[in-house]
């Protein structure tokens, strides 16, 4: 496995069509944020439910309605507790409202939509993943594999990925200062090296100046200089490689 693939969290999946697609597993932080939003939604649902049952219970509109109302209350609590995540994740969007807000999606390890069974399994195991506090078990399990799968994901064969369909719009911002003229690299490069240069040119705009220079300084042998000059030369080579 090339070094880049060991460092990168991108998961390459080969499809039956003979093409490789890339999945980007979601970070624990964004999954945590999504969980927080879902928790707020759930608490709001339970508050509404509580108020409704209380109203029916207190007014006791019809004799004996209390039993029916509390029964429906129990069924709803049960359905929401065990079904909220399942229904949303098995839907066409593959994400709970919280996950959707964070741009996440649950897919199978093969990158396909999840059906009912994986959705049920991964959320059944939520009970243990969330133990003892703050999803500690799940986080530990996720740290031990490359796809950040908690126990539920492992059993169900699912991954939570970033589902940014507009990822390519990253290229709409001018990727590098326009003044840079493409230039060929001075030596022959391997395929992997060329790829790294192209990525550098495309993504440099996302980083701070210091970070760009720090990276470019690693290959001062290639650019023959350091600092800002190095960044510009490296980007120029990347652009040349990409466009020629």
């Amino acid at each position, binding site marked *: 496995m090339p070094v880049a693939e060991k460092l990168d969290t991108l998961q390459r999946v080969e499809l039956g069509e003979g093409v490789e697609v890339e999945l980007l597993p979601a970070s624990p932080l964004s999954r945590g944020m999504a969980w927080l939003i879902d928790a707020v939604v759930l608490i709001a649902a339970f508050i509404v439910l509580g108020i409704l049952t209380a109203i029916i219970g207190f007014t006791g509109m019809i004799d004996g309605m209390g039993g029916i109302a509390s029964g429906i209350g129990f069924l709803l609590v*049960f359905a929401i507790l065990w079904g909220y995540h399942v229904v949303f994740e098995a839907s066409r969007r593959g994400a709970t409202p919280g996950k959707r807000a964070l741009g996440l999606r649950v897919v199978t390890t093969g*990158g396909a939509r999840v059906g009912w069974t994986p959705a049920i399994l991964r959320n059944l195991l939520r*009970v*243990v993943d969330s133990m003892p506090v703050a999803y500690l078990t799940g986080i530990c399990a996720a740290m031990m594999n490359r796809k950040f799968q908690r126990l539920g994901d492992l059993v169900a064969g699912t991954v939570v990925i970033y589902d940014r369909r507009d990822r390519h719009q990253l290229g709409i911002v001018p990727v590098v200062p326009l003044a840079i003229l493409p230039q060929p690299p001075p030596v022959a490069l391997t395929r992997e090296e060329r790829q790294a240069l192209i990525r550098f040119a495309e993504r440099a705009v996302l980083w701070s100046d210091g970070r760009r220079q720090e990276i470019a300084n690693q290959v001062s042998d290639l650019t023959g200089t350091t600092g800002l000059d190095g960044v510009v030369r490296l980007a120029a080579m990347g652009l040349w490689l990409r466009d020629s």
Partner: protein
Amino acid sequence: MTQQRFEQESEARWRDLENLVQAAEQRRFMAELETLPSRFRQLCADLSLAQHRMYGARLCGRLNALVIRTRNVLVTPQGSSGAAGLVRLWGAFPRTLRREWRLFWLSMLLFWVPFLAMIAAAYYDQRWIFAVLGEEDMRSLDGMYGRDTPTEFLREEFGSDFAMFAFYIYNNVGIGLRTIAGGALATIGAVFTTAAQGVILGAMFGYVHYAGNLERFYTFVAGHSAPELLGLIICGAAGIRLGLAVIKPGMLSRADALRVAGREALPMIYGGPLMVLGAAFIEGFWSASAAPPPVKHMVGIVVWVLVAGYLLLAGRRETDAA
């Protein structure tokens, strides 16, 4: 070919495909949808080409996302749902249970040994029972099954059958589901919950043996006892199956073993809680009804025989491979 020319030549095709996929996602019908598979293959070829020629993250990212999106439209999730799934489960559940008979009997022992021991404690040393049940529990058992409680039934209020039925689902099915999930922690959760259920239920039975009205008690529990107890025990076995993947993964990695365990235990994971669900129906609407005790005892025995017969005999003709 430069990236620019490649993009220019293909742009119209990708646009068309994006529109088609959008239509399919919104379930709008277009005659052109029939061309989706061949367009998808073309797109896959485009992505491979772009990756091979290193056309940069912008283009590759866009095509990558479009491939995934199109495939989600073309390929629906596997597995049967609804009625077809239930029909398959009908045979697959007892078959899986017979295949995993060792785990089933292990779970049986985990439940029945403490259960029977607690009942025996009623006759030898009641302190065991008092140690498990709190004041509150004993008072409510006295209220329901005490020697002085009149034999008329309790749930007179209209709708209280339904309320109890819903509560049993919320509580008992919840326990079953938690038992399965807890098993994933190296079987600990499932072993503990199954044994704890044996201790707690055993203590309740024991207390009634010691201080209550036995006929009244067994008249109430007879009908739903088989599916409820066996359902919980099967949940325990399913949980242990998951946990074994962590303890004893065999030739697989633990991650792979968990996935295999999930797939193999699946009929039990569905079947166990469904049995408890069935028990909730009986317990809610039949167990507290006014039918005479002999009828209820008979029904209880018939249910035990039916459940045992189902688990032993059903689904023998087909195989799981089908």
